[in-house]
């Protein structure tokens, strides 16, 4: 499978699509030395053109969804999306609010869902690990 090429160095780009920051600080914490993601080859990519995995947090609002689609198009294939937190999965406490699309998978195809409000950093890393396992690592 072509996707195997990323399994030793999956670079992660994080996009906040209308989150409360809770998931964002946990994703940020997951990418720092206490949890040491670099043992899995995971590194924070500053640019969608360098990224392999997009971590989406937050209940998507309409303006951010457009931006997310654009970032997804800018990311080179093979590319994967992790929806992180209750809001990106179902809208969380913000479900049915007027500006929201509420689900990341309505904007881009999602490969892994990490539940939690917010998910612990361990859970975020576990989500990435599951994705890598799925790729035949």
């Amino acid at each position, binding site marked *: 499978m072509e996707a195997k090429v990323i399994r030793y160095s999956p670079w992660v*780009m*994080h*996009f*906040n*699509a*209308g*989150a*409360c*920051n*809770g*998931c*964002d*600080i*946990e994703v*940020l*914490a997951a990418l*720092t*030395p*206490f949890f040491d993601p670099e043992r899995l080859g995971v590194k*924070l990519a*500053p*640019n*969608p053109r360098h990224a392999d995995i997009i971590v989406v947090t*937050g*209940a998507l*609002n*309409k*303006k*951010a969804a*457009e*931006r997310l689609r654009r*970032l997804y198009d800018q990311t080179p294939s093979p590319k994967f999306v992790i929806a992180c937190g209750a809001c990106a999965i179902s809208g*969380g*406490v*913000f479900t*049915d*609010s*007027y*500006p*929201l699309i509420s689900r990341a998978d309505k904007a881009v195809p999602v490969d892994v869902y990490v539940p939690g*409000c*917010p998910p*612990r950093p361990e859970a975020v890393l576990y989500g990435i690990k599951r994705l890598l396992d799925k790729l035949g690592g």
Partner: protein
Amino acid sequence: MALVEIPIGPQHPALHEPIMLKVRTDGEDVVEVTVNTGYNHRGIEKILEKNSWVRGMYIAGRVCGICNAVHVQTYVQGVEKLMGVEPPPRANYIRTIVMELERIHSHILISAVMAEITGFATLFMLMMRDRERVMYLKELVTGNRVHADIHTFGGVKRDLDEVRRSRILDELEKVEERLKYYKRVFETDYTIVRRLSEVGRIRKSEALRLSVVGPTLRGSGVKSDVRFEDPYAAYSEIPFNPVYRDEGDSWARMMVRLDEALESVGIVRHALERLPQGPAVPKAVPRAAKPGEVFSRVEAPRGELIYHIVSTGGTNPYRVKIRTPSFLNILNTESTYLGHRLADVPVIFASYDPCVSCTERVLVVDERSGRRTYMSLRELARVGSK
């Protein structure tokens, strides 16, 4: 030379939050900055109206993940007045402990981000490592790392036992030691001092005119802190020193935060040592509030946070208006970027400790008429500044 427009964000490695700064530059010099928001609008005030008072506690906390406990505190202390319940002293102390732990981790976080922006990646990693200690302490008190959700009407949801109390006191020693070290780094490191001082200066009169709040205001030498002016929770019983600086530049704002974090360690320690006995967890949570309206304010890590709650009786609020500190700090400070170099823009922006998820509730941004609403948003910011 022609002006060049450079968009920073909404997806940017340094900011982690969706906001867009449109920077117009002449060569390296910044001539105009416009802030473009709306990527994080979630309609929170509307869903607060649609849900009950009790559910509102969880929604208020999710305005912002970094300063969630202060949001819940502001909401809960306002609703408690409408419901006519009073939290017991022990609950007030536990609330104070959670809020101060949150202030410590918030201030470490923004200092770490600042270190990263100035190109000091090692310091960022070290600070994030030590921030985990504070997150662990928060988890010991509340059971959650980020969303504390410990407040309830008339008390807290979870009491603090002796084992965890002494554990927190031990761990605080290490946190304090590290904070003192980071303060020394920010004070003495040549690169950081050169990079931050004289950058993004706001004079005292200007700070008042722009109506900035929190460390941004105190960094400009204005003595304003809700914890002193209008004590809430247990602040009236806990001694601590106000932190002010006169320089008014980015460096002063960062130093105010680090000093405040050290003060917060003292507050947590004092509160833990003098934790009153008695109940903290209420037996029953009231569901309905009397008609009336209440104005409630607390000092969030980023400044003064205001909730205006209107009740017409019953189990749902009629209106909840939230005024967050970042709303003023981000939108009113566009002018402070002017005349600086392009490389200083992220530094100035980070020195306001921007919290985008706090800012974006009231602004209706419709994708189709985005341009027009955006203009009125800027006018709104102007009105707020006069």
